[in-house]
């Protein structure tokens, strides 16, 4: 049982961590781009992003299940009921959150920073880095919220992961299982582990948030 618990905990961290990382790599640049530029269709993108905040994990899971199922278009990849599928599902859920929050962090960061960077000769890339630097408190919050969402999420990973012991069981699906079996106490204990992971992650990110890192 103990090695099982360790396994489940590590898989939770791995899946949600990887999903948050992937989502951040994709969403932070996009969010900066959307936040910094004015272009037609920007409002549409904002609308979609915000709407997707309310994307129910179960539905995300269903969509992904249909895609990854052996009778679905991506069935040949054989990803269903693997951690990879779970990572994909959580990435899907975290991306809009990180895009949206990065967008608002960047667009409320005073335009003056962008202009100063441009005037001092920064190219687009460096300008973006500078704006990210100035908006970093907001962006890091975005990543934290994204990780929280990934870690707490259960509907999608249950569907595409299958909650298979030793393979795809994570803390949240284990909590569901324990609750179903009436082991409320054990369920709560797993919940406490989950919150502890969140807290450690938060603590690390906060240290990062407080010190400067790029320019």
């Amino acid at each position, binding site marked *: 049982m103990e090695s099982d618990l360790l396994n489940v905990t590590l898989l939770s961290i791995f899946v949600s961590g990887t999903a948050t990382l992937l989502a951040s790599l994709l969403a932070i640049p996009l969010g900066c781009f959307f936040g910094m530029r004015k272009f037609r269709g920007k409002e549409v993108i904002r609308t979609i992003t915000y709407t997707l905040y309310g994307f129910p994990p179960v539905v995300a899971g269903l969509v992904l299940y249909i895609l990854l*199922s*052996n009778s679905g278009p991506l069935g040949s990849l054989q990803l269903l*009921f693997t951690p990879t599928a779970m990572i994909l599902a959580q990435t899907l859920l975290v991306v809009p959150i990180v895009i949206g929050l990065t967008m608002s962090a960047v667009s409320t960061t005073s335009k003056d920073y962008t202009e100063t960077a441009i005037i001092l000769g920064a190219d687009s890339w460096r300008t973006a880095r500078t704006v990210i630097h100035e908006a970093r408190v907001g962006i890091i919050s975005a990543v934290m919220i994204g990780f929280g969402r990934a870690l707490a999420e259960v509907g999608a990973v249950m569907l595409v992961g299958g909650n*298979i012991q030793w*393979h795809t069981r994570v803390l949240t699906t284990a909590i569901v*299982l324990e609750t*179903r*079996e*009436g082991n409320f106490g054990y369920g709560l204990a797993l919940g406490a582990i989950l919150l502890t992971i969140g807290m450690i992650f938060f603590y690390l990110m906060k240290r990062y948030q407080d010190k400067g890192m790029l320019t």
Partner: protein
Amino acid sequence: IANKDKPVSVILATTTSTQDSGLLDYILPDFNSKYDADVKVIAVGTGQALELGRNGDADVLFVHSPAKEIDFVDQGYGLYRWKVMYNQFVIVGPASDPAGINGTALAKDALGMIYNTGSKFCSRGDQSGTHTAEQKLWTSAGYNYTGITMQSNSSWYLSLGQGMGDTLLTASEKQAYTIVDEATWFNLESGLDLVILVKGDAVLFNQYGVIPVNGTMHPAINEEMGVNFANWVTSPETQAMIANYTLKGNQVFTPNTDRKP
């Protein structure tokens, strides 16, 4: 883990009751070692399990909804369906027993008394094996089941759309009657404020079946292992193991395979 060839992975789609009762944890190691396999258990609703089979995402099904299982095989998705075991449904309710069903021999009579007294009743309401059995009982007692569920203002009949454990908890909180399989009952009994009131009626038998998924439906299906599983679970040795499995001192499942030797 020893550094031998990777065991073959087999996906078993089953209902939550087999997993939650602990039966699978008890019997599966034997299969894994005999066939050098790694059975991956996906415990979901019966409907979802059958759908996983249809989509070619599971190699073998182990569920308890006979009519739907037979359809599944008839439509060509499954090779065949063998009975594996059964357990009993029981009607449980508050010790105060407002409908006075305690000791009633026939389940349909008990339902009639519940209906007539307007006592609270919790239904799984999720088209699961248990729910299907419940619907049949209402019909056999002479009621129009759809009529019952479509009363939106009904405060006695509660259709939950939840798993067995959750339904039991709800019934306990609401001091309502419900129908439950013995495996789940033995597992959760101690935390509940409910007692068994009706048991033993033959219509309350809960039949589990095994279906290897038809490999021609989809190339990814491991038909051979599915067949192995069906053979193994219906073999005399495994049947004996099922009979031996107890939960808090009670035998939970009674093996009764119909496989022709």
